[in-house]
């Protein structure tokens, strides 16, 4: 019998790795509409994807640098905020990534069912 702690530790790492791959897709999926950092955190949270700002903001910056996002500072009361949305390149990449993911999902579902 394995310790519950041990299983939990292993699961924690695996969950993280599993999530890592899908995080970009989750973020891109919401950026058809303009979002600023905190509004994106709350939107994703409401849907059920818990993400903290220390993961999201660096990710947004990375995607922005890669040219997948357009970002602008907008001064709307009560304070200036940096808004992100998909760039033309971002839309293209998002569509391709989506197909990749759905394809993976299809294969994975089949694999898991076969084992059963």
């Amino acid at each position: 019998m394995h310790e519950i702690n041990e299983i939990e530790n292993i699961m924690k790492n695996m969950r993280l790795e599993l999530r890592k791959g899908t995080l970009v897709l989750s973020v891109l999926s919401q950026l058809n509409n303009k979002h600023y950092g905190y509004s994106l955190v709350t939107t994703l949270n409401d849907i059920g994807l818990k993400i903290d700002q220390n993961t999201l903001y660096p990710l947004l910056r990375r995607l922005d640098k890669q040219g997948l996002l357009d970002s602008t500072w907008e001064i709307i009361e009560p304070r200036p905020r940096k808004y992100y949305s998909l760039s033309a390149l971002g839309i293209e990449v998002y569509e391709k990534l989506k197909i990749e993911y759905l394809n993976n999902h299809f294969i994975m579902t089949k694999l898991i069912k076969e084992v059963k």
Partner: protein
Amino acid sequence: MMDLLNRYLYQIEKNLPRKEREEIINELKSSLLDQIDHLVEQGFNKDEAQLKVIKESGHPIDVAYSYRSDTPLIRRDLSPIMLTIMKIISIVLPIVLIISKTVSLVFSDTTYSTAGLFEEILLLIPSIINALLISFGSVFLAFIITSKYLTTELTSHLGDFNPKLLPKKPPKKLKVSLFESIITVIGGLIFIYIINIQSHVIAIYFDSSSVPLLNDNFQKILPFLNISILFNIVIHLFYLYNRRKNLIFITLELIQMIFSGVVIILIASLDIIDVSSLEIYDLGFINNMFIVGMYIGGIGTIIGGIIKYAKIMIQIPDLEELKTLSK
């Protein structure tokens, strides 16, 4: 009230790559303020909300490192320790080298002119740079190796951090007291004039005759005194010109104060007063008083300089905040 948030952001900023600092901090600040507003809407008071948001956001170093895509050579829990050590080295090493050089020059057989002494100190600069490079390199290497092989995470100090203990933001612009600088420059120039050209006025006056007080030993220490005062005058001329202090000049001021402290102590130990002329008037005790006074003055100057510097550099949280914490 936003003081705590600014202190928090400053600690993050310090650990971010320089190029991206402004952008990242602006965005983070905007987001943290959004979160605070959100909590206030839910009924928290502003201070509570601020504290909660900062706590949930996490340790400043963790936040800063989440923006780094590269694997740093120095582990994130070790890098603040390394930076502190390097800062201490960069201040202490030049001071120690300058002082040891000064002491060895004073007790050498040759008597230096002010210009000659100045040259000696200029020649010290390359060896200071050399020593700094070697020490920085060794510290850096030591930390790379430690980062690689130390397995225990020093996260305990990162994990539960207390936002209330965040250090104060050091003031960017330190005001210059014009009065102090003008007095220092004028007083310094007068003093240099007297000790170099009119040193015979430092004498005992009695019945319209005077006996010079200083003996030849004074000539030995004179160049050091000149350099110390000139150094101080240059610093204060810069203050008068620039109207504000910066970190480099505050550090130079510390070095100057320690240097002049050492010179004053050397004056005390060199018997520069002509005791024989004092004894004519039965005033031998003046020499003893002078020596004791100089020792106290020299040590006081050094301690005073260090305290002055430490007060600016170490931003200790307010005592009030510490009190509320211990309750």
